[in-house]
């Protein structure tokens, strides 16, 4: 089975007073093992609600979500699913529980009932993976936002998940912190083969993904590779989403009659194209 996540006709409704709100409206999609997927859309598009279905924080009103072939609506599966799919949230301060970095990373494995020797090994490896080994004995509140987020990620990796779901992990970080976190996540995807689902509204973070899903009003309205998605400059702008500046420039140059592909995403590609 090469599917990490299977979503079949997922609908999620909640009630606000006596109004029924459809936060997710009949979404079907698959995510393959080892893929790096970005889900973009603005606030209220349903992307965070979708994310919460991926480790059984929310259960579908109708339809099915399978994580590593386990049905999330079966309560018996909940803990196994959370071990497979770890989640990282926006605010690093809400996720760290311990007073020492390495204890925080050990929290998850401890709750899984893993023996102490194995926990030690996992914590060391996880901290090494996110390049935070030298901070193992530090207090989390003394770290920068980017460092805290990497500790939160280490806490997830120590549980040996097959999949990490990140819900706007960099929204509260400065550019350097943002880069630290994204570099870490890409490395985990490439070296450890962990499936990554990154929910974001920073388009530059989606540029290197294998696949992008664009959400609006609870539906997936576009899906494809970054080049396929970002060449729809007009459509993305209508949705109130940003387009990477290089793609926008390529689009503008093309309008001026220049023979240039609208599939340019990075500065490097643009330089090579214009001035080889």
């Amino acid at each position, binding site marked *: 089975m090469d599917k990490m996540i299977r979503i079949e006709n997922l609908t999620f409704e909640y009630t606000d007073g006596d109004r029924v709100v459809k936060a997710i409206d009949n979404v079907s999609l698959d995510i393959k093992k080892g893929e790096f997927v970005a889900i973009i859309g*603005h*606030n209220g598009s349903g992307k965070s609600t979708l994310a919460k279905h991926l480790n059984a924080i929310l259960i579908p009103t109708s339809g099915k979500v399978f994580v590593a072939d386990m049905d999330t609506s079966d309560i018996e599966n909940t803990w196994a699913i959370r071990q497979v799919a770890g989640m990282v949230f926006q605010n690093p301060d809400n996720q760290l529980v311990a007073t020492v970095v390495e204890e925080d990373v050990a929290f998850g494995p401890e709750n899984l009932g893993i023996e102490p020797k194995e926990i030690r090994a996992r914590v060391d490896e996880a901290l090494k993976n996110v390049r935070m080994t030298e901070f193992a004995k530090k207090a989390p509140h003394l770290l920068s936002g980017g460092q805290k987020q990497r500790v939160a990620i280490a806490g997830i990796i120590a549980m040996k998940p097959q999949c990490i779901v990140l819900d706007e992990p960099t*929204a509260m970080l*400065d550019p350097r912190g943002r880069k630290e976190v994204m570099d870490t996540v890409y490395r985990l995807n490439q070296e450890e083969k962990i499936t990554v689902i990154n929910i974001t509204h920073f388009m530059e973070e989606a540029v290197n993904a294998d696949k992008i899903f664009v959400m609006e009003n609870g539906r997936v309205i576009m899906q494809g590779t970054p080049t396929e998605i970002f060449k729809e400059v007009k459509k993305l702008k209508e949705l109130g989403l940003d387009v990477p*500046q*290089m793609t926008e*420039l390529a689009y*503008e140059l093309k309008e001026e009659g220049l023979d240039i592909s609208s599939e340019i995403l990075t*500065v490097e590609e643009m330089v090579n194209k*214009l001035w080889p």
Partner: protein
Amino acid sequence: MAVIIKDLVHIYNPGSPFESTALNKVNLEINDGEFIGLIGHTGSGKSTLIQHLNGLLKPSSGKILINDLDITSKDVSLTEVRKKVGLVFQYPEYQLFEETIYKDIAFGPSNLGLSEAEIEIRVKDAMEITGLDYELLKERSPFELSGGQRRRVAIAGVLAMRPDILILDEPTAGLDPRGRDEILREIKEIHKKHNTTIILVSHSMEDISKLVDRIIVMNKGAVEYSGTPREIFRYGKRLTEIGLGVPKVVELAISLREKGMPIKEDVITIEEVKSEILRNLRSKKNA
């Protein structure tokens, strides 16, 4: 002159093992009605600096004059300072506390001892400029609103104080592109309508370059650069070194210039880079 800062030094925990110098002889002048973008990496001292401007922090040494009032002198009235300088913190929506939106926005002005009528005018005005419907929302609880709307209520609460100088610390953090654009448009509107001096703290060069008259770059507790966006972005390399980065189009212009395409040095928008590229490619063709 709206703000004059002279040799401002701030040392946290002086005399203890945790002693650290957050501001090291900062000198700045900000004109009336100027729109300033204050940027710097986390730990550069920008938050420490703005907390001095409305008297939340006292300098270790140095002076700050706000419209000729020395706010660092011992006998200064902090109420006077806060009437002049409004500070909107990061994630200000977490500071809402009243039962209704009206009461929350009216809280600051009520403490100034204004008449009910005057307070109502101010609340209405502040809600209008932040895009909040007065009739529809005044009796609603702020906690029923979306995050972006709650942030507007928090900003309106500061505006209702009618400050001469408005400081906003990362007002668009955590918002999506649409929410970000709306808030920035409203800030621009405030600047235009009341000629308020604005200091906008941000990490985003893209946001700042479109809006401000002047960018002040902080690094390691000191002012590293001060100038128009065009002047500042010439130092693209240095900005990247200090963890800031420049807009991607500026990065492109720098790369192209290094490769030998003679692009002008002071381009900062997509539009400008586009016309420079077209000019160069066409002259190359004709050569």
